[in-house]
């Protein structure tokens, strides 16, 4: 459940160019060059949380299973598996190797999972392993790591005991935190682990061949990878690391990089350059989250209902964001989430508020009667240009329609996260990207025990529904619970959905087979190839 780095963190960036490749794509050597917006902050798979690190790790590491081009689960290190209500067994392939030629064994997974759960590691993503028996207790420091419900009956058979029946467990194992880590290597590197190209050992399709910090990062095909025959590219060179979107576009136009994202400004230049623009829906939902802590004005439901009745997501998407690909937000569950047999949205249409100023004013006067005085509300947002624009729009909207005063608090990503955790806000602009292909990746977000429930919304009925959906493996029961939960989210105006994120990008016409993903590494160049 990765929190989204909405956009670049720095407005002033330093761009350092590494060695410059001749072209962005090269057919003869099957080499491509592209650019990153920032240096991967954390390549330790047990601790990685951000999208750039997940993207790089997805190319150089492999878990038990992986996603294919269509987003379906396919075998990775595990050749086959069997999941029951109480356990899961994985049979590992014998030809899966680390980049030094040693085999990947079941012990590497056990070590990684135990280590990620160790309170000393302080992995922010430890909770994704809570599906395993005793995982939560270990992470809280109540049990030793050896109590984790996972054993190896031999080097190539991994047996997992589950905490409770979990229908989507196999999808979880594709996630970054579930990647293997080899104990002897990890311990030999100590705190330097994953700090440099040579401080990391790889079992994925590529290895990091060279890493000049803040300048370039080159990946080369891994000769020990078990499925190396499916990999066409010999090298992926990241020669540029800069957050400046215009610099990315210029590099693309100059033929220096093969792939680049576009934003609200650069896409117009791309159009005049007659470049073919592609779009992709990231599957993330962006919303305004209220602070439900007692004493906060936003803990009053009538204020939240008033805002719900003046905010029009369609206007925001079409007039304020005004870049293609975004969809107006309708509920916590984005349009792609699967229901029992078709899309969740078609089976359980989300309730929507009509934009009704009179109703909103009625709610607001009720709120004023209850609160006596409404202080200016603090709207916490990240400091990216697009987030500021959205914040100013909401500020203007609420002031002109309802007379509600909003002060905008712009903070860097880290600082915003700290303020979200400490509850130092009334409304926060947040986003949520899915981690695995199940409705639960969104559903438990507002459960009272979830630390990512930054507004501390508590509703026993909501918690009960989440438990129903967690404890059942019957799709109909789970989806019915989620349908009811969607209704609660609306009735209580727990959050205000803004938009489902879409992005637009450019790709070199000779580069084929790049996968854009809702889950896992995105963009994924693993199966890409350069055509003549």
């Amino acid at each position, binding site marked *: 459940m990765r929190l989204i780095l909405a956009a670049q963190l720095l407005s002033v960036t330093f761009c350092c160019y590494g060695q410059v490749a001749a072209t962005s794509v090269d057919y003869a050597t099957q080499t491509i060059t592209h650019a990153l917006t920032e240096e991967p902050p954390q390549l330790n798979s047990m601790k990685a949380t951000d999208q750039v690190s997940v993207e790089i790790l997805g190319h150089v590491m492999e878990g038990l299973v992986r996603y294919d081009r269509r987003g379906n689960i396919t075998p990775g290190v595990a050749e086959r598996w069997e999941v029951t209500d109480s356990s899961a067994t994985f049979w590992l392939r014998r030809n899966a190797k680390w980049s030094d030629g040693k085999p990947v064994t079941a012990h590497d997974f056990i070590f990684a999972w135990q280590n990620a759960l160790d309170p000393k590691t302080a992995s922010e993503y430890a909770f994704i392993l809570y599906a395993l028996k005793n995982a939560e207790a270990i992470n809280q420091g109540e049990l030793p790591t050896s109590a984790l419900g996972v054993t190896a009956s031999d080097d190539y058979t991994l047996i997992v005991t589950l905490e409770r029946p979990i229908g989507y467990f196999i999808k979880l194992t594709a996630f970054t935190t579930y990647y293997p880590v080899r104990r002897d290597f990890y311990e030999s590197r100590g705190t330097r682990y994953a700090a440099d190209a040579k401080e990391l050992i790889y079992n994925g399709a590529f290895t990091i061949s060279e890493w000049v910090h803040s300048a370039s990062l080159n990946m080369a095909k891994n000769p020990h990878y078990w499925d190396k025959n499916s990999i066409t590219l010999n090298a992926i060179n990241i020669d540029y690391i800069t957050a400046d979107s215009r610099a990315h576009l210029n590099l693309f136009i100059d033929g220096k990089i093969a792939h680049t994202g576009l934003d609200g400004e650069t*896409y117009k230049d791309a159009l005049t350059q007659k470049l073919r623009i592609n779009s992709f829906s990231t599957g993330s939902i962006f919303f305004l989250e209220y602070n439900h802590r007692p004493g906060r004005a936003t803990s009053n439901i009538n204020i939240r209902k008033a805002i719900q009745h003046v905010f029009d997501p369609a206007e925001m998407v079409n007039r304020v964001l005004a870049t293609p690909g975004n969809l107006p937000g309708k509920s916590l569950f984005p349009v792609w989430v699967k229901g029992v047999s078709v899309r969740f949205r078609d089976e359980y249409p989300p309730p929507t508020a009509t934009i009704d100023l009179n109703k909103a004013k009625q709610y607001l006067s009720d709120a004023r009667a209850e609160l006596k005085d409404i202080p200016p509300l603090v709207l916490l947002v990240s400091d990216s240009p697009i987030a500021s624009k959205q914040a100013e729009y909401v500020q203007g909207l609420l002031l002109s329609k309802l007379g509600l005063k909003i002060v*905008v608090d712009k903070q860097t990503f880290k600082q915003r996260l700290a303020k979200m955790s400490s509850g130092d806000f009334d409304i926060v602009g947040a986003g949520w990207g899915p981690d695995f292909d199940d409705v639960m990746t969104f559903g438990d977000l507002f459960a009272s025990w979830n630390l990512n429930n930054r507004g501390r919304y508590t509703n026993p009925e909501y918690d009960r529904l989440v438990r129903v959906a967690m404890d059942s493996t019957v799709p109909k029961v789970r989806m019915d619970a989620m349908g009811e939960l969607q209704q609660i989210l609306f009735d209580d105006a727990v959050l205000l959905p803004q938009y489902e994120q879409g992005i637009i990008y450019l790709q070199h016409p000779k580069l084929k087979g790049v996968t854009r993903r809702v889950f896992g590494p995105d963009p994924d160049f693993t199966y890409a190839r350069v055509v003549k």
Partner: protein
Amino acid sequence: MIDFSPAEKSVAIEQITRPSLSYWQDAWQRLKKNTRAIISLYIIVFIAFFTLFGPFLWQVDPALQDLNQVSQAPALPKQALLSAAYIQWQRIVIQDFPAEPDSYRDQVYAPKSLRLINMATTQGVRLSWNPVVGAGGYNIYRNERYPEGFNDLGLPLGSTYAGNEIGYEDRLGLEPLTYYYSVVPTDGFDEYEVYSVLTVTPQLTITVDEAKARNLVSDTARPGDVISLEFHPLGTDYLGRDMLARLMEGARVSLFIGIFAPLFFVLFGIAYGGFAGYFGGRLDAVLMRFADFVVALPFLLFMILFKIAFGVGPGESGIIPMLIALVLLSWPATARLVRGQVLQIREQGYIEAARLLGGRDHYLIFRHIIPNTMGVILVTLTFAVPAAIFTEAFLSFIGMGVVPPTPSWGSMCNEGVKTMLSHPHELIFPALLISITVLAFNLLGDGFTEALDSRLRSRE
């Protein structure tokens, strides 16, 4: 014979033919002859008028968002058609056609009879087309010029994911321009390289409810009427806010810092420099070393520290800390200048004379020394004003000054620079105002330098 005789007494010779000129009168006369300085003076008076009285003449709320007119260039008021309330778009799915093709085809035909449903307005453009045999979905593109080929279809607006879903509604930032819509059939994932194009020019419309809410029409207005939208003489910004109103509002912040910061630090500089210069000796040395120390402090770093020290919370303006930081860090230049002048004047004969006649310190300072440094001080002040305006603009540009929705010229430039290529007016107007104001103050300062220099006093 007498060689010499007294000249006849003539009153005319001793008569003062011209009025006696004081120092200031003379300076003013010479300033008037300096055309550049006088033009600058007029510009400054105009800007002051623009700032102080502009908002009373142009009573538009600078924070009011007009999302019907986002990023409009300067233009005359636009005419819009009143429309009924927006009706939710229903997807067009036909039943007697397969959603997914039964078999994969190498090629398919381009969609036939691509057409408009309803009238095309800026509220929405609704398209439909005939289903394509073999298609598993469609991608819809929009361009602002006729597509020159498959790679020039423009913006990817969206997709339908079924061969029998044959409609699309575009509401994305529509303006009354000519658009070229293209529809490309897909097999559900990949595109076939065929497309159909439809040329559409949406009509600028506004719903009756919205027009009423904005006080654009009377209660009797009904759909179909043509009305004038709000007039934005200098265009609008990225949220449809009136540029003229924002420039006036922004001028208040910029000029507040521009006038008051120099005023305060020049006053302090005079006191400090005058004190050090007049008393001299060891005191002077100590005071001036402290001034050197202040000069060495990094401005930006201190600006950030002040902001934290003042506890400027989220969403609070950083203008007052900025003012204080400017005053605390900028005075040494004036202090040095005044000290130098005072050191020089102190040794003059008339000061000695005044002292011998029993003049006290404060008499000497206020009667003789300060008036004689006035010229230098005035020049410093006029040059300090543009520097302070520039500093404010710079700090607001990097986001350390005003907070939204309050504009300042610097923060408006910061916002405008992001859309510099597509909507240059959002950058040009604030940048132009900063440049003109700074230039005017500088030229006026030059004029003062010449006019107040007593060595250049007119001798005719």
